[in-house]
């Protein structure tokens, strides 16, 4: 009788191996498809992955002190809830107050800017007749109307999505931290013996590179936000905390993030007659934060981990932007880091024992 487990002469794989590979490919394709189709679920998984990477060292630290992993998770989540609920109350309420004032003032600043632009546009059109077909102010007014309309019609959906994320992310994060190892083990069981060690090491190196990168970017973002808030507060600029938070969030986007983060603060100061004298100090604060980030924080924290040539970094960010906009820019470097690991492995597979440089 022909043995079903006999190895194929061409590939060295058994029928079981081929079945396993088939299941792995189908599983990964189906999972990716589902995550990309169900926006909320995909976002929840992405956020949970980031949170699990950020919280993992804290859970491990408690385990080192003798706590069981489940209890360590409970403690970490309990502390986070307590911080958000009580100790962070002042910061959050102050942030909300500033955000309320900012969101109320923003339309006023927008209208002021529009009036100024309208005067300037009329003046330019009388001087240069070629500009008459242009209706910049009308276009901006339409944009404002459309944006307001979008918020009115989609506000409930956005709120619903946020609440779903608020519920899903902690649950998925806990599952990832508690059972992530078991799930990974199940996945490895589907990998044929021939590729097991390589798959194990590649996935380990990818996850550890991504983890290091995400941790470094979060710390970098926090430091940039902190410097911006302190700098703005030192000059008594309004909404220092909100603008610091915006700068820290946008700073996660490579290259253009710092510029996007500076726009709200600079525009607001420029449009507000009461604070116009602060325009240059505010520009200097943003510049200083960016210079400190570029010269000190980024090289010390992030560049060493990524270990890719600056030209390659710019290229991957541009490619990311081309296909997926801001999100593409955000995820381009982690994807490039993962691809680098895979390419290194292929290089090793092709060229055998010749040593290759590893970032580890």
């Amino acid at each position: 009788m022909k043995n079903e487990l006999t190895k194929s002469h061409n590939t060295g794989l058994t029928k079981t191996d081929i079945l396993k590979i088939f299941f792995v490919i189908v599983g990964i394709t189906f999972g990716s498809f589902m995550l990309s189709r169900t926006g909320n679920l995909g976002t929840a998984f992405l956020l949970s992955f980031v949170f699990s990477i950020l919280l993992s060292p804290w859970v491990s630290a408690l385990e080192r002190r003798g706590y069981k992993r489940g209890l360590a998770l409970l403690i970490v989540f309990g502390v986070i809830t307590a911080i958000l609920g009580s100790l962070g109350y002042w910061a959050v309420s102050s942030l909300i107050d500033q955000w309320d004032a900012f969101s109320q003032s923003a339309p006023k600043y927008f209208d002021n800017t529009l009036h100024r632009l309208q005067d300037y546009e009329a003046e330019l059109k009388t001087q240069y007749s070629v500009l008459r077909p242009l209706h910049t102010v009308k276009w901006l007014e339409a944009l404002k109307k459309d944006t307001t309309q979008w918020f009115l019609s989609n506000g409930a959906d956005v709120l619903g999505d946020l609440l779903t994320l608020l519920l899903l992310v902690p649950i998925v994060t806990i599952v990832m931290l508690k059972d992530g190892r078991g799930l990974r083990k199940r996945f490895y069981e589907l990998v044929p013996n021939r590729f097991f060690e390589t798959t194990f090491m590649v996935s380990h190196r990818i996850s550890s590179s991504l983890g290091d990168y995400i941790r470094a970017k979060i710390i970098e973002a926090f430091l940039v936000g902190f410097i911006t808030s302190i700098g703005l507060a030192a000059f008594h600029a309004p909404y220092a905390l909100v603008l610091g938070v915006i700068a820290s969030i946008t700073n996660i986007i490579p290259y253009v993030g710092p510029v996007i983060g500076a726009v709200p603060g600079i525009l607001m100061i420029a449009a507000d007659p009461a604070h116009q004298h602060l325009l240059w100090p505010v520009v200097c604060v943003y510049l200083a934060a960016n210079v400190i980030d570029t010269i000190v924080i980024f090289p010390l924290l992030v560049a060493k981990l990524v270990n890719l040539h600056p030209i390659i970094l710019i290229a991957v960010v541009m490619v990311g932007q081309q296909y997926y906009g801001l999100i593409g820019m955000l995820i381009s470097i982690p994807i490039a880091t993962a691809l680098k690991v895979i390419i290194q492995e292929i290089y090793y597979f092709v060229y055998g024992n010749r040593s290759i440089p590893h970032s580890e």
Partner: protein
Amino acid sequence: MSKSKSILWAQFFNPKKSKAWNLIEVLKENVLFQGLTEKELIYLSNFVYERTFEAKETIFKQNDRGFGMYIIARGLVGIKQEAFENEGDFILTLGKGSFFGELSLIDSESLRTASAVAIEPTTLVGLFKPDLMEIIERKPSMGIKIMLQLSQVMGQRLVESTDRISELENEKRINQKS
């Protein structure tokens, strides 16, 4: 159900019921984990991987990069080296309870010094360097126990190798005199 399907089913969907051996017992009997308590052995079992090999299936090849060690839970493993290929199939045959590849737990990106092949249907329990590092990070006292045992095994093998070299040197001298 065909054999390949049943193996896949057993490995992925119902791994515990298909086992004719106990993972904790396998770990307990191994010299590297002798200092561990029952709780620590259960904890360790979450960090190891069970791999099933068919007869004549290669486990790893000489000069492959090694990332960890294997303990034989059942079956037989043959070890062979390129340098001795003319002198027969295997330079060493290992049975249940034996382990091999432990050097890879210490030496990062080390190359396998010999090839390992399953002589008969074999199940191995693998422990890999990143997981050992994680154990050391999460449970330092347990990690130290494993590392201490590992260094003792290494030391013992070094003594055995030194003795063997001395024996060969003596044989060489005797041959030269005669």
